[in-house]
């Protein structure tokens, strides 16, 4: 089977520190945090009261924030894709990382009180539990995506997995174009309380913008975020033929299972290493070809040292020569959307000629000994960036992106 090159021809993003790629990129390069006090509900007595909350009001056909985020990000991507006057054509599909079904305590209380469930489809489909797969159908209908949608629920790796499986469909000729990405919002009472009960989230409530501290000695857990990232993948030749200018190229994907612990990564970073090594092999690249890494970087005590170890294992001496950015320091952890939004961050920064900073990195942990680009963006020319995601339950995914300059130079 002849492998097709896979162009990234458009992107869209909804993030806590910016809606739309230009605003998001500006925030990344300026090191502007999107972490604030939670205002979506009153979290007064919860241990964690901060999050990366999207500020924009985005319309959605159901009262489920992640649906509005996904639709907005996809609209931006398709508008960009069609800016040249043509649209991608042929067999199009969707590959979407998506979060948990929205579970409403208000609706549960209403049901217990014996109130009748609402009768209209809109109300019925948002009463008690809104099936997450609805989001895929809204997106497919809005953009005429005729292939059966792929839904990924591999927790924090879902966004990267969505990009990877969509990439393979285009590369193998099973699709002509794919809308790929992730969307999530767990900034709701059950979501916030659930993570707090696991002691997984930062309680640095007094200084929200300083709370997400990947690789830092005083890190105390992740900060929840919300948002969506969407990218449009097309066959390289088809994209050029219709007059589109690729923003870059997706060249490799690998994923793996830790087969180890439910909430702790493999102590030798086996799964994380396997995912990165498979992505490099899939791209036909050597570790030394990678110019920078967009890290998973959650700021949890367990994850950051293991991720650092995995980078050492895969990249050897090259590990210390690459800048490594943690987008979660700026926007928090977007769970199922994380990998997709971080891919948008990586590619837009790459094309701008910069790596964005890992903010709040005052004193790196002694076990975290790489160049994490503390505090300030740095000018850095990049041909290839690897972006990784590691999920609860031992799901690991990595993708390799080629920047616009290198991709166009390759012909």
């Amino acid at each position, binding site marked *: 089977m002849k492998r097709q090159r896979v162009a990234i021809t458009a992107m869209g993003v909804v993030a806590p520190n910016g809606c739309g790629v230009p605003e998001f990129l500006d925030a990344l390069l300026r090191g502007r945090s999107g972490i604030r006090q939670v205002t979506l509900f009153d979290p007064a007595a919860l241990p964690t009261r901060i999050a990366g909350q999207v500020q924009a009001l985005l319309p959605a056909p159901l009262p489920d924030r992640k649906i509005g985020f996904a639709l907005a990000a996809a609209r931006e991507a398709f508008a960009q894709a069609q800016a040249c006057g043509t649209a991608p054509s042929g067999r199009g599909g969707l590959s979407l990382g998506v979060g948990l079904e929205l579970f409403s305590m208000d609706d549960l209380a209403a049901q217990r009180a014996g109130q009748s469930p609402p009768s209209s489809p809109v109300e019925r489909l948002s009463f008690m539990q809104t*099936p997450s*797969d609805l989001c895929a*159908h809204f997106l497919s209908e809005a953009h005429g995506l005729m292939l059966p949608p*792929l839904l990924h*629920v591999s927790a924090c790796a879902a966004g990267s997995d969505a990009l990877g499986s969509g990439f393979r469909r285009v590369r193998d000729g099973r699709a002509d174009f794919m809308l790929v990405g992730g969307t999530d919002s767990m900034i709701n009472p059950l979501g916030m309380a659930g993570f707090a009960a696991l002691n997984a989230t930062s309680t640095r409530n007094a200084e929200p913008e300083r709370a997400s501290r990947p690789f830092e000695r005083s890190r105390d857990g992740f900060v929840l975020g919300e948002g969506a990232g969407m990218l449009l993948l097309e066959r390289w030749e088809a994209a050029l033929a219709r007059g589109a200018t690729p923003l870059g190229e997706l060249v490799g994907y690998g994923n793996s299972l*830790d*087969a180890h612990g439910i909430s702790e990564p493999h102590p030798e970073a086996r799964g994380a290493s396997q995912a990165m090594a498979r992505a490099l092999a899939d791209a036909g690249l050597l570790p030394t070809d990678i110019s920078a890494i967009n890290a998973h970087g959650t700021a949890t005590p367990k994850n950051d040292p293991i991720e650092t170890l995995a980078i050492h294992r895969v990249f050897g001496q090259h590990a210390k020569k690459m800048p490594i950015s943690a987008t979660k320091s700026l926007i928090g952890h977007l769970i199922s959307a994380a990998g997709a939004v971080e891919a948008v961050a990586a590619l837009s920064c790459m094309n701008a000629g910069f790596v964005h900073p890992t903010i709040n990195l005052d004193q790196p942990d002694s076990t975290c000994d790489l160049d994490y680009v503390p505090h300030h963006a740095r000018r850095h020319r990049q041909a290839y960036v690897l972006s990784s995601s590691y999920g609860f339950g031992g*799901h690991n995914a990595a993708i390799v992106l080629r920047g616009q300059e290198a991709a166009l130079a390759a012909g």
Partner: protein
Amino acid sequence: MICVTGASSVALGPHDPKTLEPTEFLRAKKTRKFMGTQDDLAVISAGRALAQAGLGAERLAERAGLFAVVGYIPFNREDIDPVLTESLEGERFSMQRFSSGGFQQAHPLLTFRCLPNMPAFHVSANFDLQGPYFVSYPGAGQVYAALEEAVSSLNDESIDVAVLVAVAHQRNFLVEHHFGRITPPVAAAELWDAGACLVLERADFARARGAKLRAELLGMQQHYEPHDALTQEFAGNETLSGVARPPGERGPALLFTALAEAVGGSAAALELVHRVQTRDHVSAQSRWRVLS
């Protein structure tokens, strides 16, 4: 040629016990406390299917991929009720009461028992599957997505063994609620807890290791109709030919269950055809030759 070397199913109907016991398949017994019903279904069906295929850890690890489809999220009423009780102000949910005490009523392991990727975790950890994976959401449409991913990974030889798991914990108040409100509704008594597993391999690889080939995948196809999910409600239907349909609504597990029953009980070769039109406008079909 892609073939089935192991298949197993497990199901609990309306009159069956509430729980299953997967302990015999657990590498670390302490993980039992993290497991919900859909995890039990996944581990038991995978354990039996891998045993039938004659596959132990030495053949799996990095060369085995996992392709899992789970049902709607099944928070248990007994886990949620205490949270709600402590969060009410009169009959209404009170955020203040939830924050000050309600959330503390949640069982600390609640999250682990309901997350849709947990069946994949338990199967991977107990049977040492370290290869690529695909973990997806409810519905027969996603079963075909998982099947396509598995076949693609086998054909490009990135793996030698694909473990496909479909599970749904449906005797559950939230899931019953969901099926009761859609058009047409499905009665709670029709909803079964169901899990099933297929072990797929390339025929040449299976033969080389001396495995018994139990069925062959002859072909599959999928089609999707983008639609307005709020107004174009559709009943959907799912049929099997060549074999009897197992009783009850099995969620995503029906196809794998039918194959498991066919390979376990067929004295003569037969052709099994599965056709589905899902409520979300995916139509798909697969043909299998079950070997004698």
